[in-house]
């Protein structure tokens, strides 16, 4: 048996590495959250004791609250559209022999590799050409562009032979095509559908560049926070940042709880 001290010494580099790594990732967030409770006008050390007044200020700021509501609407609506379109495309490519299927699949997933900046500029130019006014709708369209490939890829990876056989059995038992999809395919792959929807919502919730370039009067939360930051740092920006972070964490936890725990069970 190894000497206890030796065990500790051996474990030391491992634990130091882990601490450094997590510190690197989470220290900025920790500082952000800590100074959102700062009882002074500037979010810099020293920490002057906790207060909730900046959160109060955030929740009574109608512009911020409007932006929050806009973000939620854009996130949910664009994710639903991405999910439905992504699922239909994945189903078609997984179940039918289509001419140029490889090419179609490539084109569908290509936007995953293009930077958001390029997508945003492309959308801006296109909307200008078509005379589409910048609004939440255009932001939503932008988010569908980035999230559709994601939904497609996740759903496509989950459509295997297992479901194909069950679909065949359903057809054999008299189900029409829409019934096969609604009663067999969708319930069988719902964890994948749920996961793609939630990932889409979190991506849309965080997204700045596209939302910034193709919106005008109604803006989403990241854009509103950006305009707050231009007037300088104060604990209120920390408070709203912490709130955004909290929502993202909640979404990830929910996803983990509902989808992955269930699959393990």
């Amino acid at each position, binding site marked *: 048996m190894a000497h206890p001290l030796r065990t500790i010494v051996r474990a030391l580099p491992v634990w130091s590495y882990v601490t450094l790594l997590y510190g690197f990732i989470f220290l900025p967030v920790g500082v952000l959250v800590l100074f959102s409770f700062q009882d002074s006008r500037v979010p810099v050390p020293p920490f002057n004791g906790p207060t909730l007044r900046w959160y109060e200020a955030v929740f009574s700021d109608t512009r911020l609250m409007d932006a929050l509501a806009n973000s939620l609407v854009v996130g949910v609506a664009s994710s639903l559209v991405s999910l439905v379109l992504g699922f239909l495309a994945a189903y078609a490519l997984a179940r039918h022999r289509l001419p140029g299927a490889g090419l179609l699949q490539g084109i569908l997933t290509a936007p995953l590799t293009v930077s958001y900046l390029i997508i945003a500029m492309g959308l801006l130019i296109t909307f200008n050409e078509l005379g589409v006014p910048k609004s939440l709708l255009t932001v939503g369209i932008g988010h569908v562009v980035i999230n559709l490939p994601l939904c497609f890829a996740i759903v496509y990876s989950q459509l295997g032979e297992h479901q194909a056989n*069950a679909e065949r*059995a*359903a*057809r*054999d*038992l008299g189900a*029409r095509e829409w019934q096969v999809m609604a009663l067999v395919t969708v319930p*069988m792959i719902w964890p994948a559908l749920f996961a793609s929807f939630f990932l889409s919502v979190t991506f849309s919730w965080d997204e700045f560049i596209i939302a910034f370039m193709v919106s005008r009067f109604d803006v989403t939360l990241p854009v509103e926070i950006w305009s707050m930051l231009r007037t300088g740092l104060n604990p209120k920006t920390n408070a709203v940042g912490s709130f955004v972070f909290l929502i993202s964490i909640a979404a990830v936890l929910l996803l983990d709880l509902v989808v992955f725990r269930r699959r393990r069970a």
Partner: protein
Amino acid sequence: MSTPAVEFRGIAMHFGDKAALRGIDLAIAEGSFVVLLGPSGGGKTTLLNILGGFLGPTAGQVLIKGADVTQVPPAKRPTTTVFQDYALFPHMSIAGNVGFGLKMRGVPKTERSARVEKALDMVGLGHTALRRIHELSGGQRQRIALARALVVEPSVLLLDEPLGALDLKLRRQMQEELKAIQKRVGTTFVHVTHDQEEAMAIADVIVVMNDGAIEDVGPPERVYLRPASRFTANFMGDNNLIEGRVARAEHGCVAVTTPLGGFDIRGDAEAGASVALSLRPEHLHTEAGGGRVALGRATVMEAGFFGTHHQCSARMDGLDTPLKLRLPQKRLVQPGEVIGLHADPGDMVLLTR
């Protein structure tokens, strides 16, 4: 003659250059248990898929109860299928699985649950309605798949190697059950398998298929005892084929010359034709008696005890391949022993193709 439950007329199926089926003509009588038997790649599963509507034939027609269904999709055919992997719906309860077909047919809820209950009782799983699929064993899943397919009262039930995934003992038990259920419901069953013992155990009619064509059709006893072709004779159980030539032919009787001597056999063939005689291992004896004639002496090469019998192979002068023998339980033989062999020409079957 009444309308057959199923009729294939000139069914051909090509996958690219490969012909999977070449001109299948077959009528299946109402209420019979038909087994499509053959090696994998023989076309039996393709034929079943064409009957179920999952594949469209390249040529030919499929009729069910006299109606042409060649262009009808699976959902609208009066057929249901028990799939090889069962293809149950994992997200539904057992009652949900069994009731699915009835739901698709718009059967009201109360009638539906009564019929589901009846179907589950039929397969001996009445107590499991609310359980989920993953709680069931392989044999139980098999029965649920059967109940799910039968509850909608199809004209024809298709079974695609349904027992393939079960262990031997369960397999034999399910064979008996399948047979009993078929007799009870009276539905026409079309069952695909490559297991000839299974085919003999359950079939009213065996259809032997090979290389996209039908080799033989008939009741198990006939197909086993009087096979129509060399392929059938070899595929259905162990067999010895002795090649020979027709010396004389008259009035349904032929004289065949073989390396083991000349025999007078029932059958038709032209004089001079090359034929084969099928001689089952259990029809070779070490004692004379009855109408048996002596075949000569053979040297035992291998012998094994199989409980009900001894299985041996023995070499004989003039034959390229050793003969397979099935000697009685108490007849002990050792490798190297020389034994005299006798057979009744009445047990020999003349094979012309």
